[in-house]
């Protein structure tokens, strides 16, 4: 099956300006050469710590941030920049669910207005069918039709996130980008929303780009995982491969750092120091300053993301990956 979304060598840089003339003195390389595909109906989990560029990547795919270079293809068609009148049909195919359900819903719009705005904008329904469409959407996300004329502030975080999801699926997109969509929710509500996303994926044949720092959530929803560190992909593969036997030293440290109840305390790799600044990333491998396995060579050579065995979808950007996997 041809990929639904192809990202090729994508770079999103933000200028750092200084002085009265706002001279550009450098760039924050938020996304610095990222490539991966998403197949129709597939869920790709994008993981990494804050500042690794995962949110910027999601926003760039959606056209909310301008890219510096690289290609984003949706079903073979370049996504941005398209001529303005061509962007409307593209926006119908990619939708987003944001992290914070408190700031991502317009407080002055009723629930009906929020969930049907996209449908009207895309001319998929007539204005007089608005209420019917809204009722149908709310039912799909497990909410009562009685809430139609209420406002976002009347709802809890979990319910607001259901409303956000209803808004996203309203225009029948093929890809939904979920940026930390369940991170702000309490555990008991988080499971409800995850189950809803899993159900909708099946009923609407949705593909998700699921951005999260929570590896437990990724394990349950994603079939494939992409691990980012400081703007680059360090490892990718099926969710079970990457999370059960990570091959990149960063993925290993990240996974071992998650505190999990039950069982004996595991031996964990504790990384030293903080993530370096993405305006001035380390030479060679970007992880080498915190890597417990770094060699002098890591400072010189930029590791390329390559398959662990020829033809495998499991790719790792580390010069010592084979040693790690053999152990």
């Amino acid at each position, binding site marked *: 099956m041809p990929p639904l979304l192809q990202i090729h060598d994508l770079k999103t840089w933000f200028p750092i300006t200084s002085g009265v003339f706002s001279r550009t003195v450098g760039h924050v390389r938020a996304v610095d050469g990222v490539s991966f595909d998403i197949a129709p109906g597939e869920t790709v989990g994008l993981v990494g*710590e*804050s500042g690794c560029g995962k949110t910027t990547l999601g926003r760039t795919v959606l056209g909310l941030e301008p890219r510096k270079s690289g290609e984003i293809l949706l079903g073979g068609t370049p996504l941005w920049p398209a001529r303005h009148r061509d962007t409307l049909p593209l926006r119908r195919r990619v939708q987003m669910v944001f992290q914070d359900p408190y700031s991502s819903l317009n407080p002055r719009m009723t629930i009906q207005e929020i969930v049907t705005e996209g449908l009207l904008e895309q001319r998929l329904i007539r204005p007089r069918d608005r209420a019917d469409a809204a009722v149908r959407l709310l039912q799909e996300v497990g909410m009562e039709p009685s809430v139609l004329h209420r406002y976002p502030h009347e709802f*809890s975080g*979990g*319910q607001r996130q259901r409303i956000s999801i209803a808004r996203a699926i309203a225009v029948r997109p093929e890809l939904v980008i979920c940026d930390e969509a369940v991170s702000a929710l*309490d*555990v*008991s*509500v*988080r*499971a*409800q929303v*995850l*189950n809803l996303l*899993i159900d909708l994926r099946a009923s609407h044949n949705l593909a998700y780009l699921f951005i999260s*720092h*929570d*590896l*437990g*959530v990724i*394990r*349950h929803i994603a079939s494939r995982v992409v691990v980012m560190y400081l703007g680059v992909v360090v490892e990718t593969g099926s*969710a*079970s491969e990457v*999370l*059960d036997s990570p091959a990149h030293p960063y993925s290993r*440290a*990240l*996974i*071992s*750092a*998650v*505190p*999990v*109840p*039950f069982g004996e*305390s595991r031996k*964990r790799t*504790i*990384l030293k*120091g*903080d*993530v370096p600044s993405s305006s001035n990333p380390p030479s060679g491998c970007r992880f080498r300053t915190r890597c417990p396995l770094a060699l002098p060579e890591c400072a010189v050579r930029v590791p390329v993301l390559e398959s662990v065995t020829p033809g495998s979808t499991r790719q790792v950007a580390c010069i010592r990956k084979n040693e790690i996997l053999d152990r």
Partner: protein
Amino acid sequence: MNTLLDIRNLGITFDTDEGPLKAVDNVSFSIRQGEVVGLVGESGCGKSATALSLLRLIPMPPGRLTSGEVIFEGRDLLRLPTYELRSIRGRRISVIFQEPMSALSPLHRVGAQLVETLQLHLPIDTRTAWNTSVDWLKRVGLPDPVAQMRAYPYQLSGGMLQRVMIAMALMLEPALIIADEPTTALDVTIQAQVLELLREMKSKDASLLLITHDLGVVWELCARVVVMYASRVVEEGPRRDLFENPAHPYTRALLDSVLSLTGRADRLSTIEGQVPSPLAYPAGCRFAPRCPHAFTRCRQEQPPLYTLSTDRHSACFLCDKHPTAHTS
């Protein structure tokens, strides 16, 4: 082990525009000397209000103490004159807050804030206080401590600031450290560093009250666990026993909703419905509307905290060994 802190029937109500909001309702538990106790629950369950009230850090009004006492070293913290309380705050009981960014003053250098803390409580000169502070920053693993002393909080990362907060909380060697979600604002690799640090740095006789919603963190650090739901304690017990044999349906559901990293279920087990609003708690057990085991009695009476064995308590009628007996 001796009891260090004893919270008895604590009740705190906030007066809001919509009416009185019961944030903490009849909460009792104790902390022994040298013990690490985890206070667990979802947002709004009253865990932070409980912890902050121990040092009277809750603004009153709108907050109001409705009942209870907190006995620490023979004195009731809730009724102590302010000047006496000041000698306990920071010195005998210290707090590590959730957001180090907002807990430190943005206008003062890190060093000045550490030195001030020391000089407020100890009769030492600035030079000694400065040296002690540098020493502590070194002990919490901050690189280049002298430079960090001269830095302003905005110049440090979240993980580094949390280390500063930990140094500040530990350097007066308090008997009790209250850590309110100390790692929630941090990334997971930094969280691992901070948890390791807390474990190492806490001296043997100091007690730690760890407030968190993360059961993984509780499992790693705590000896005993207190679970709160809708302003009340629903279960209490030693860590392993509570995790392996939860007695309250809420604890069980909470443990079931932990996502494993190694396995994967087709559907996640969920707790149906939502946490009730503190402005309108149901009569009877507050978990009853979401509880798969609820029966008539649960909707009529509030279950008391039953004692299952020493140290093991649960507020569920299913734990009532004499169901016909009268309960208050």
